[in-house]
C-alpha cells in the first residue's frame, strides 16, 4: 500500500494512505477513535432510526 501507483489511485478518490505502525498501535488508536465517534454521535444528538 506504500506503492506510488496505489497512493496515486487512492488520491484520485480523495483519500490518502495512512498505515498504522503495527496492529497493536492500530488497536490502541481504535479504542481512542471509538470514544471520539461515540462522543460525536452524542453531540449531534443522533437517535437510532
Amino acid at each position, binding site marked *: 500500500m506504500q506503492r506510488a501507483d496505489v497512493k496515486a489511485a487512492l488520491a484520485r478518490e480523495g483519500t490518502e494512505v495512512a498505515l498504522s505502525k503495527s496492529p497493536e498501535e*492500530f488497536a490502541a488508536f481504535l479504542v481512542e477513535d471509538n470514544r471520539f465517534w461515540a462522543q460525536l*454521535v452524542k*453531540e*449531534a444528538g443522533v437517535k437510532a432510526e
Partner: protein
Amino acid sequence: LTAVAVCGLLGAAGSTKAQSWPAKPIRLVIGFAPGGAADYVARTIADPLGRLLGQSVVVENRAGAGSSLAADFVAKAPADGYTLLIASPSSISVNPALNAKLTYSAKDLVPVTKVTSSPLVVAVHPGAGINSFQELIAIGESEAGALNYTSSGNGSAPHLGAAHFSKVAGVEMVHIPYKGGAPAIQAVIAGDAQLTFGTPPSVLPMVQAGRLKALAVTSPNRSSLVPDVPGTIEAGLPAYSMSFWYWLLRAGRHAARGGEEAVRCGLSRSCSAPT
C-alpha cells in the same frame, strides 16, 4: 520491542506454520455496493495485497444496514485469516453508539491496520458572503441559527463532523439532512443552504468549477489532496479535527489457533511493504 521485531522472530521460529497461510484465496468484504469510496479503496488494495501474500484477494460486496451487514458477517466468520473487512468509523464506532441492538460486537473484529484517511472539506456557496473559516465562525457567533448546513444524512460523517464543529467553535447551526452526498452538495450550489462538510471527491470538482468555495479541510494540517486550502490549525480552530478513515480488520471471534501468528504478521508485513 516493536511489533515488527516480534513478527520477525516468530516468522523465523515458526516458518513451517507461516508457510501454511494463505493456502487459498482471501475474501475482502466491504459493506457497500460497487462504485462507492469503500469499494474503490478495497479494489485498489486487493491486487497488490494479493500479490504480496501470494494468493488472490477477492473483493466481496455485502451492502446493507449502513455497512453493519458486512461487519456482522466478518465478525462471525472463522478467525483463520481468510476473511478480511474494509471498515470505516460507521461500522466500528458509529453504528454501535447508535444501535444498542447491534448483532455483532466490534470486539470480534481484529485490527490489522489503518488504510486511508480523508478530511472533510468545509464548503460554502460562493455567493454566501463567507470568505474564510474565521468569517464562518464570526457569522455563526453573531447569531444562533444564522448558519445552516447540509449533510448526506443523520449520523453520516458530514453530519457528525459539522455537529462537532458547532460544539468546538461554540456556533449553533441548523442541520438539513439529505439522502446522500450528491443532493446535500447540490442544495448548497443551488443556494438552498449555506454550507456543507463534504467528502473530497464530492466537493472538489465543484470547487474547481467555481460553484463552491472551500474554506478549510477538517484535518489539523493541509491535505495533499487540496494543498491550497488550510487545515484547522492554520484556519484558527486547532481544537477541531475530524478525519474519516478506512481500516482493515479481520475475523477474530474464535480463539487464536496455530496459524494466528502467521496471519497477524503476514498481513501486517504485506500491508506495510514498500513495493
